[in-house]
């Protein structure tokens, strides 16, 4: 059955008990992203260190399907504690895998649990779900770096 390929146990685990769920204070920037095809929404907050080089915390509130919720959950595991530079590398690798139509071999060293989303790449309609949280993270980091701190 193809279903298990897409909904791997890791994804279902994150979906049932998502990490980083619930918006937290303090934060440096917040980003809201919407999937216009289904109306799913994520609000994500980022807290960086004073130098703006390290990701101290990420929290989110996700109204969406299992894929978007699990993806945001895995994201928090992968980027909290990393440098901004490293987190952007993970983001790039995730995006490449998600948009690779199942033809990109994911690098488990970089992506960790996020390799579980490789199966999603075979379903073009679901790629946006997987990317929603990551796009919010990227946007929030850019907002911090641009000094556009929004409460």
């Amino acid at each position, binding site marked *: 059955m193809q*279903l298990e390929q897409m909904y791997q146990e890791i994804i279902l685990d994150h*979906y049932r008990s998502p990490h980083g769920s619930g918006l937290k204070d303090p934060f440096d920037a917040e980003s809201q992203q919407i999937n216009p095809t289904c*109306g799913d929404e994520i609000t994500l907050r980022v807290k960086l260190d004073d130098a703006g080089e390290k990701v101290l915390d990420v929290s989110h509130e996700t109204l969406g*399907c*299992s894929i978007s919720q699990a993806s945001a959950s895995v994201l928090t595991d992968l980027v909290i504690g990393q440098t901004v530079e490293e987190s952007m590398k993970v983001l790039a690798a995730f995006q490449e895998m998600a948009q690779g139509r199942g033809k990109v071999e994911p690098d488990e060293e970089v992506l960790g649990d996020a390799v579980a989303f490789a199966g999603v790449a075979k379903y073009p309609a679901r790629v946006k779900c997987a990317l929603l949280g990551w796009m919010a993270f990227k946007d929030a980091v850019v907002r911090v770096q641009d000094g556009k701190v929004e409460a």
Partner: protein
Amino acid sequence: MTTAQAPAGAGLAGLDPAVLRPDFAILSRTVRDGRPLVYLDSGATSQRPRQVLDAEREFLEQHNSAVHRGAHQLAEEATDAYESARARIAAFVGADPDELVFVKNATEGINLVAYAMSNSSIRTGLGPESERFALGPGDEIVVTELEHHANLVPWQELCRRTGATLRWYPVTDEGRIDVDALELSERTKVVAFAHQSNVLGSVAPVQELVRRARAVGALVLLDACQSVPHLPVDLRALDVDFAVFSGHKMLGPSGVGVLYGRTELLEAMPPFLTGGSMIELVRMEGSTYAPPPQRFEAGVPMTSQAVGLGAAVDYLTALGMENVHAHEMALTQVALDTLREVPGVRIVGPDSLEARGGTVAFVVDGVHAHDVGQVLDDRGIAVRVGHHCAWPLHRRFGVAATVRASFHVYTTVDEVAQLADGVRAAQEFFGTGR
């Protein structure tokens, strides 16, 4: 010209999808590892019978030429085919051929009316006769909360351009337009609403809405996208001013749709798109325009598509729209009955067949519509998930997304019954079944 062959099921008492299905080759294919396709997404687009495909091919192989220009034989034949399609489609909805404008889809039809009003509002209409379409600050356009974005966004934009105000009828918990919740006024210029909701399946109280609009002198536009393909519709009897529908939702081709307008209105209305074919006289200093419907069909139009839509109308006419509607009501009953038995499923929209069409939307507690759709897809069942281009309506019901099953002449009871089994499988997969 040959006319399309009648479908095999024509003339039977009622309608037997098993007899029709061989006309729809796509229905015999498999999906996702060899599973038979169960197509429950006809509300998004319907499948086309071979009679429609044959009509398009026959036109292209025998008569293809630009219509309304050229004096050669092919040009004559192409024009005859195009105008014959217009006449048959007009008869299908109780209109005169000159009241039908070919557009690419219903969305374009609504935009055509909105832009004609926009042009009238900035006094680039035809002359004094276009004044009746002019809008300004203080004027109102009224829609409903259940509209497809196609019958909402063009009016929002028209309001932005003219300073008019958009107002809307709210929707009741049962998914009906709450006609008493909004008072029209002398400033209401347009009332635009869906004949049948593309999400809930609820059928609007057209007579009552038209009566109220008439009482204040407002124009009425009917979005008939989900009604003309599924039930008998007589636009003149409904007494609306404008109506739109799309070919691809009624067994016809994509790229062709219809705007209906009462003759006296189309005659007074300025064009939207301009260019070739829609003119009367052109000088460097300026131009005058052809009478309708040509005034609204700039450029070489879609032709094989119009011919295909004519064949689709022949197909539906042979089946009988009363039969089509009765068939879809029987399917809807099965869908409602079987889904109701699944704990955790909530129907969004009317839970009975009263004033309702064959579109069933629902949510499943604890399982997002996308995830339900994915499990159904894995079983070969194609449904629509999301907000179905009716985002405000979903917001009204406090949900981000619903699962929508929709039917047509080829849908079988067995296919509809598989829906509830698929929903149970989704609940089991995500651990929410009871």
